[in-house]
């Protein structure tokens, strides 16, 4: 062995190298204050290690970046830990940098002969910050996308070359594949390469000058190995422990006020919803260590374009310049004092700004909103009209000043509350994206963003808010996403439309003319209202219940599948009552009974197809015909006409959402949903050949699900093209439809023979003939049917 080492040393001189590396003299012995540089190096090496492994699973493109990160985080064993380590090590690195810089400045280690090494250190600092900035974008989630948009937009205000610079960095006029490839090349190639280069120089110069020992020396000299290495290693381990704690219990759970996640794959670094340029992201914030810059920009309100230039470009450049000049300033008698003071002011100021930014965003969390009730009432009364304010307070200057102070505080509270709502919404979309991505059918090639764009649960509330909430309420206490309920709605509340509760309310003399039903519409004095108020009380309450159950069963709501199948006898009895021309069929059409044109058709009432038809054209004779109050026809022209307000795809999403028909992952399903879906299998649904479905919850959500899966593949050109929703529309074979729209799903169970009755789409009249109108398929491919029927 010794002979081999001798030989090796002879050929390479390795002994001297090792000796130089390990036995460097440490004047005054090893000390804890010298560990910062070493821990930084160790953390950097850890970043290289974790980064290379992440690299092995990462795919930089707009269609695959989020998807591959999702896969790392949620599917690959230990992926969450690897990502978490990389994420929190990067944050640790920024903290350690600040500490290292402070220690160097305080010890005066920047002075001759170490000036050049100090400058090298500053270059390294900039490289580390650039690494975190570029890394933030790579998951291509909403957070990284929008934050980076802001950062790169700031680039465009750089004098002279700004726009070109921005276009080069972004990789084109718009954000996309090449933004990712460029950022990734910077993040994994250029920047680490430069960092290693400068780090080697930094360490070499450090060795050349030796450690800048803190005087007076308290202990005898020691050698780097093992004394200082021991301390360095312990410090590195401590950093790792802190990082591990952060991975397991991220600070964000503290700020967002949520409990720690239970599933390990939710630990570690956050992954937002996939980036969507068309989906606003109000919760965009930079990484916490850039928050001070973000807050600093806010100080220049009212400065116009100069404020931006000064805050984002000039001021940070001046700070950097001062840092670079420290070695020269340090020669001056008071220079060192100035440098130390400057560093403290800088770091202290950054701390204050960070705290201010956090306070601004999160104050609603710890502020009692009730305390603003008074000032809010005054604001509602007087607005921002100074004269009215003065009059309100009887021109009492003190009270007016106090009011303005309170109003300002309320305004800040309100903004914070809005931010928290945005964060909440972002987290919900993130969870939803993960839930959809982890479906057995996986992520389509068009990327995960199409999963969200075609998800009724995500898009329904947005569409409803945009098109329906002007008149309709949809008040659901358990679903904050549906915050569409406004106090002044003028049309029925559509929450759980066509459910038993909803119909029971409609047939309740106390409610039918109330604001949740026809109260604020022209029907408030119509035949239906007078029937419910005058005639129904004479009915046997059991009969009313039967009608409620039978009519609600027409909707085939997934949430009610269980009850519907149990109450077969009730439903049959109810149907007979409805079909009686002395009861409902006197005005309404119901299957074979009654006529169209007087009141809405009750055949398939509240079903997907019925709803789509209703929203498309309420003036159609199948619905309110000439009695329609104010409801616009959202897709009167049918098909893909550009005159339609809503596309077929949007109609489908809206109808599915109103019916509560969407995919829910099995793990998140409640006892109720699994119960009802188990029942769904028993229910005889022609277009639902999922009797062999292994996943009960899947079955529940299938119809909506199919659309989701079927569509993304042609998402690129169907966003407003309803035709593509049902490429095989003419097909009469439910199974054929099933397969063509959903090739990847797991249920290929045979449709029971007696249920395979073809359902000519959109022809309720024909449905009566096959005797199974109530089992109208919630098949997405029928979604244009109302148009056809017209």
């Amino acid at each position: 062995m010794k002979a081999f080492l001798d030989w090796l040393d002879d050929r390479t001189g390795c002994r001297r190298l090792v000796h130089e590396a390990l036995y460097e003299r440490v004047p005054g012995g090893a000390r804890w204050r010298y560990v910062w540089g070493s821990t930084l190096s160790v953390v950097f090496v850890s970043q290289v290690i974790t980064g290379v492994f992440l690299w092995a699973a990462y795919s930089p493109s707009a269609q695959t970046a989020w998807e591959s990160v999702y896969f790392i985080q949620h599917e690959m064993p230990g992926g969450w830990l690897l990502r978490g380590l990389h994420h929190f090590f990067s944050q640790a690195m920024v903290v350690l940098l600040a500490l290292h810089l402070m220690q160097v400045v305080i010890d005066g280690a920047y002075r001759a002969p170490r000036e050049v090494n100090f400058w090298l250190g500053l270059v390294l600092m900039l490289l580390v910050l650039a690494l975190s900035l570029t890394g933030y974008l790579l998951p291509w989630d909403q957070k990284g996308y929008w934050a980076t948009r802001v950062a790169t937009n700031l680039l465009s205000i750089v004098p002279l070359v700004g726009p070109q610079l921005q276009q080069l960095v972004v990789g084109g006029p718009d954000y996309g594949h090449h933004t990712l490839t460029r950022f990734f090349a910077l993040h994994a190639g250029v920047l680490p390469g430069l960092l290693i280069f400068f780090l080697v120089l930094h360490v070499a110069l450090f060795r050349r000058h030796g450690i800048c020992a803190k005087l007076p020396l308290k202990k005898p000299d020691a050698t780097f190995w093992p004394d200082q290495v021991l301390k360095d290693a312990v410090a590195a381990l401590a950093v790792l422990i802190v990082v591990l704690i952060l991975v397991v219990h991220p600070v964000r759970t503290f700020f967002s006020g949520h409990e720690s996640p239970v599933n390990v794959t939710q630990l570690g670094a956050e992954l937002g919803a996939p980036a969507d340029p068309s989906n606003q992201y109000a919760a965009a914030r930079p990484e916490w260590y850039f928050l001070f810059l973000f807050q600093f920009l806010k100080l220049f309100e009212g400065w116009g374009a100069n404020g931006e230039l000064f805050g984002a470009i000039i001021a940070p450049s001046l700070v950097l310049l001062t840092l670079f000049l420290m070695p020269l300033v340090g020669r001056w008698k008071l220079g060192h004092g100035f440098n130390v003071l400057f560093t403290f002011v800088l770091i202290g100021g950054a701390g204050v700004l960070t705290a201010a930014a956090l306070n601004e965003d999160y104050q609603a969390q710890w502020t009692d909103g009730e305390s603003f009730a008074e000032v809010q009432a005054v604001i509602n009364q007087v607005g921002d009209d100074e004269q009215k304010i003065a009059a309100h307070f009887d021109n009492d200057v003190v009270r007016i000043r106090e009011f303005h102070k309170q109003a300002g505080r309320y305004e800040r509270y309100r903004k914070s509350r809005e931010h928290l709502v945005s964060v909440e919404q972002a987290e919900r979309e993130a969870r939803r994206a993960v839930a959809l991505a982890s479906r057995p059918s996986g992520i389509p090639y068009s990327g995960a963003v199409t999963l969200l764009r075609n998800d009724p649960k995500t898009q329904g509330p947005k569409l409803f808010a945009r098109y329906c909430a002007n008149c309709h309420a949809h008040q659901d206490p358990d679903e904050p996403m549906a915050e569409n309920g406004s106090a002044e709605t003028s049309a029925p509340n559509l929450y759980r439309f066509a459910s038993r509760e909803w119909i029971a309310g409609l047939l309740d003399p106390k409610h039918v003319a109330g604001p949740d039903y026809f109260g604020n519409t022209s029907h408030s004095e119509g035949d239906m209202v007078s029937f419910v108020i005058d005639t129904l009380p004479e009915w046997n309450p059991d009969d009313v219940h039967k009608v409620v159950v039978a009519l609600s069963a027409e909707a085939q709501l997934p949430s009610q599948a269980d009850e519907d199948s149990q109450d077969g006898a009730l439903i049959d009895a109810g149907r007979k009552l409805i079909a009686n021309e002395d009861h409902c069929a006197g005005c309404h059409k119901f299957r074979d009974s009654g006529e169209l044109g007087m009141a809405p058709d009750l055949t398939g009432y509240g079903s997907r197809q019925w709803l789509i038809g209703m929203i498309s054209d309420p003036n159609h004779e199948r619905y309110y015909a000439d009695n329609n109050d104010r409801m616009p026809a959202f897709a009167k022209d049918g098909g893909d006409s550009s005159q339609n307000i809503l596309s077929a795809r949007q109609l489908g999403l809206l109808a599915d959402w109103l019916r509560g028909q969407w995919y829910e992952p099995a793990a998140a399903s409640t006892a109720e949903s699994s119960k009802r879906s188990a029942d769904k299998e028993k229910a005889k649904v022609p277009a639902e050949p999922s009797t062999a479905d292994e996943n009960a919850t899947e079955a529940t959500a299938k119809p909506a699900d199919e659309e989701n899966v079927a569509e993304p593949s042609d998402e690129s050109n169907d966003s407003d093209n309803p035709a593509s929703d049902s490429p095989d529309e003419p097909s009469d074979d439910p199974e054929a439809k099933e397969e063509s729209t959903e090739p990847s799903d797991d249920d290929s169970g045979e449709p029971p023979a007696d249920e395979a009755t073809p359902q000519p789409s959109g022809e309720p009249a024909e449905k009566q003939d096959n005797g199974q109108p109530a089992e109208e398929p919630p098949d997405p491919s029928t979604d244009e049917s109302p148009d056809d029927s017209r």
Partner: protein
Amino acid sequence: MPTPSQTPSGEGSRQKCGTSAWHCVTRSTAPAASDRRGFFSQAIAIACGGLALLVPLATGVLVLLDPLRRTSALGKLIPVAPLAAVPDDGIPHEFPVVAERVDAWNRSLEPIGAVYLRRQKGESQVECLSAMCPHAGCFVNYDTESDTFVCPCHNSQFALDGAIIEPSPSPRPMDALETEVRTDEILVKFEEFYSGRAQKVVKG
């Protein structure tokens, strides 16, 4: 065997290693050349070496600069919504702008941004504001409570006609976009402007 560094080395002194017919020089110092020849060799060496590195580098930079010649597909009239979708209630309604988007090798019909459309009582003319904040490019929200536009990023605030409400970090009002109504369909000339500037400067 003495190590090369211990060998006194002078002009032309060489160490030979190995026993075969192949000889390799372990260390030597360059013979003192005449100044002129030295300069000549140095210049050639730098030129050759530099060229050897420059060609790959220049090729890379050429490819890297490609985005500069790509232009945005913006600036065309894009149908955004049917007129009926914007009630004449004076309230801004948000609409996505769907157009062909070219993302490197992909060409697809996609939402490329969003606009706020507003119609005054009884008018058929539609006002259109880009939803992108002129400050730093965030997505501006319509805040129903205060009946203003508020940017969630840096709190820029705008009136319904897009005018700045002071104090605001935004250097200019929200960007108005040209609209046209053709057979009951609203078309918008969708453009993006550089953010953070006092003047509207079209991107791309």
